């Protein structure tokens, strides 16, 4: 063997360690199996260097943060010295002094980084007095709970929301003692731009941001003998829930999970992968119809509720490009509430639909008014993977010892296509498996489309199908989605189909999944889902005979009237902030012509500032101050037809300054002013 040493090395605690392109010392130190504590370091996010826990002593340089120091050959690094240990302890003690230390009742108990670090550093006493006054807990969001009393100001949530999701719903505000992470203007999370993906909670090292829990409501339903409680489980849950019980990530525990659900008292256990198959059939048909008949393309997938709210807020003109298919969760909910009462002669009021999701945004989705029939929600309660694990623990079930059981038929039957919905690229592949056979009229020999698989956040692939080539975009992380959506808005996107998942890696990386700091976790869970697919007999949604039967018996034609009633939905323009108005005048309003010019994001881009400017000029030059009340408003939620101007309540879409002026003069004439 050639023993020439070419690798550059540096010295960590007396051991020479090779440098292999690590971005910073911290990565290298962890590579060398020394787990330096951190709060604010997250490999997906930019380096912040605030928590001061990863401090190391570098010979000749003194004490520095490992996260913000690039590795250089020849450095002598010490990770443990008396001085460093003392600094780390003081940092953590100071955080603990202001932290609400009600660990036993905290949602992050046992997965809290602050708790873990305090234990590792052997902190037994907090020497400092708290200076913070208790602040109210924000429970306004349907998906998340924000407890400012537990925030350590590491900023992971802030950076995830802006760097990966491109939203910035929360940010640092104020400074010094008063510094806090807040939604805009210190409002509640539920009123703002938050799209409920919950990744802030997933990266939060403490209990400052946690998924909202619905366990109590579900226990109550399960304990009520007059209720029939049906549950559906999303694909991504089965390869992650085992982690809560000490099993390796990615291992499918489908059988034990179903057994646990039955032991908890659920009357029927259905699989969201069944309705994912149904989604494939509906969505692929919608796609092929658009592709062959010249409909709106690219078609964006719509199964991710985080993405749907994002599109509603920022890309109203693309809403016609969103697949009108409901998400698998809502499809199954709609079917269960439609079919079971008739089949079992049951009062619909006594049927409770629960879903187990890897996702916090599904909690929001289930409460959307579009998804309620006669005031009754299609899905009553949404539990995250974490919440289900907690219920299993509460019931004292030894998860790993449970005898595997199987899903109930017919809505527990699925193909591999429905299962891979849980990872990024899965929906695209499932659609391809359907579209390829439909287009060519021939059986696919191999159902795998490796081209669409992968971990990159933005993937563009071309897949030949028969005589045509389909161009697909597969994205996760909404900042990536924004890149493609911007192109589509400008008409510069030649893709046919774009799959969007808000969470990194798709649903397997959802914020409802067990908390993990393992950087490989998403890969392992994704691998787990592809293995489940491989081990199944059927891989194409069109082979799901219960889906076929469902069409024959209940739904009629694919994409037909009944299918549309139950399986499709519509979207709406949504303002990003709760309403505000810039008042440009006051005094008695009753007589005046009321003019409101929209100054929301979309109308702004479309030139509402110019309209506002011209109208202000008109009011001034024609001395209409006491005849016209002019205001700038934030969003009439009619964005796709913006800019919008309202004159005496009449909404003028695609309005121009000229048209608005004419309308104002008309109204003045009517009033003989």
């Amino acid at each position: 063997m050639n023993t020439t040493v070419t690798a550059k090395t540096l010295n960590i605690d007396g051991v020479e360690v090779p440098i292999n392109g690590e971005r910073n010392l911290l990565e290298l130190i962890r590579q060398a199996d020394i787990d330096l504590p951190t709060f604010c370091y997250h490999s997906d996010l930019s380096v912040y260097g605030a928590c001061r826990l990863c401090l190391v002593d570098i010979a000749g340089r003194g004490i520095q943060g490992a996260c913000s120091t690039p590795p250089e050959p020849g450095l002598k690094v010490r990770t443990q010295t008396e001085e460093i240990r003392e600094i780390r302890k003081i940092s953590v003690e100071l955080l603990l002094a202001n932290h609400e230390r009600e660990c036993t009742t905290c949602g992050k108990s046992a997965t809290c980084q602050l708790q873990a670090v305090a234990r590792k550093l052997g902190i037994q006493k907090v020497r400092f007095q708290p200076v913070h006054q208790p602040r109210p807990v924000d429970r306004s969001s349907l998906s998340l709970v924000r407890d400012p009393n537990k925030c350590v100001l590491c900023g992971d949530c802030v950076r995830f929301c802006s760097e990966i999701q491109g939203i910035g719903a929360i940010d640092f505000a104020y400074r010094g003692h008063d510094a806090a992470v807040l939604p805009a203007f210190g409002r509640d999370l539920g009123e703002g731009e938050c799209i409920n993906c919950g990744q802030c909670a997933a990266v939060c090292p403490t209990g400052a941001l946690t998924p909202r829990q619905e366990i109590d409501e579900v226990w109550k339903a399960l304990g009520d003998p007059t209720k029939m409680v049906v549950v559906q489980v999303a694909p991504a849950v089965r390869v992650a829930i085992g982690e809560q019980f000490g099993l390796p990530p990615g291992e499918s525990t489908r059988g034990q999970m179903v057994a646990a659900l039955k032991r908890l008292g659920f009357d029927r256990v259905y699989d969201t992968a069944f309705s994912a198959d149904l989604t494939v059939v509906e969505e692929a048909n919608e796609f092929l119809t658009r592709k062959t008949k010249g409909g709106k393309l690219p078609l964006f997938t719509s199964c991710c509720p985080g993405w749907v709210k994002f599109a509603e807020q920022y890309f109203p003109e693309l809403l016609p490009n969103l697949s009108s298919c409901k998400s698998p969760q809502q499809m199954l909910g709609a079917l269960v509430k439609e079919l079971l009462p008739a089949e079992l002669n049951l009062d619909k009021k006594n049927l409770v639909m629960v879903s187990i999701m890897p996702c916090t945004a599904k909690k929001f989705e289930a409460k959307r008014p579009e998804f309620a029939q006669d005031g009754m929600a299609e899905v009553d309660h949404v539990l995250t993977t974490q919440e289900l694990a907690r219920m299993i623990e509460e019931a004292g079930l030894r998860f790993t010892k449970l005898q595997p059981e199987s899903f109930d038929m017919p809505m527990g039957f699925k193909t591999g296509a429905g299962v891979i919905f849980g990872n990024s690229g899965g929906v695209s592949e499932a659609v391809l498996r359907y579209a390829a056979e439909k287009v060519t009229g021939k059986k696919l020999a191999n159902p795998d489309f490796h081209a669409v698989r992968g971990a990159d956040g933005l993937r563009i692939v071309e897949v030949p199908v028969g005589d045509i080539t389909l161009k697909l975009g597969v994205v996760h992380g909404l900042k990536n989605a924004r890149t493609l959506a911007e192109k589509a808005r400008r008409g510069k996107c030649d893709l046919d189909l774009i799959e969007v998942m808000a969470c990194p890696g798709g649903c397997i990386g959802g914020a409802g999944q067990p908390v993990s700091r393992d950087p490989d976790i998403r890969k392992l869970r994704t691998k787990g889902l592809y293995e489940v697919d491989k081990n199944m007999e059927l891989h194409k949604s069109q082979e799901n005979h219960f889906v076929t039967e469902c069409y024959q018996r209940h739904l009629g034609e694919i994409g037909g009237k009944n299918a549309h009633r139950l399986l499709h939905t519509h979207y709406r323009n949504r303002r990003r902030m709760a309403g505000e108005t810039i008042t440009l005048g006051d005094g008695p309003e009753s007589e005046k012509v009321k003019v409101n010019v929209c100054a929301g994001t979309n109308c702004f881009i479309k030139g509402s500032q110019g309209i506002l400017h011209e109208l202000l000029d008109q009011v001034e030059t024609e001395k209409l101050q006491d005849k016209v009340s002019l205001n700038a408003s934030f969003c009439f939620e009619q964005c796709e037809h913006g800019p919008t101007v309202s004159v005496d309540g009449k909404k003028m879409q695609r309005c121009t300054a000229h048209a608005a002026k004419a309308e104002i003069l008309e109204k003045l004439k009517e009033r003989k002013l």
Partner: protein
Amino acid sequence: MRAQAKLDSNGRKLVKIFTILDKHERKPARLVPILQAVQEEYRYLPQEVLTYVATALDISPARVFGVATFYSHFAIAPKGKHLVRLCDGTACHVKDSVPILDAIRKRLKLEGKKVTTDDMLFTVETVACLGACGLAPVVVVNDQVYGAMTPAGAVKLIEEIIAREQS
């Protein structure tokens, strides 16, 4: 009469905001000078105007709010008609600026964290050195500097303004 004047001034302010945004080419990096200019117009940073600025710069309102609350120069609540600033830098502090502050706040019935009177006539703030240490302790009322101030003297200044306002 007053209503009409207000419509005029609000409208002009907004046109001014347009000019400010255009002058700074709607660059997010210019957020601080933009906010400074906006505050010149409104004397504070109204929420809806901040939302408008965020929209125009294509950054999140939470980020704009964060910047606006970070710097003590920016006010997110309306200020009173008369701004009373008391220096509490080292020199003024050792020359007993605190009793002056207490006296002013007591006269204006400002309690707790409140800095602006209910009638929106006064806002009382402390600043950390005005560079006029030779005159310590210093009070500045609407940009007029008063040196070697005493609690009684400060209250007298306030009384004078109130008297002027009432006449």
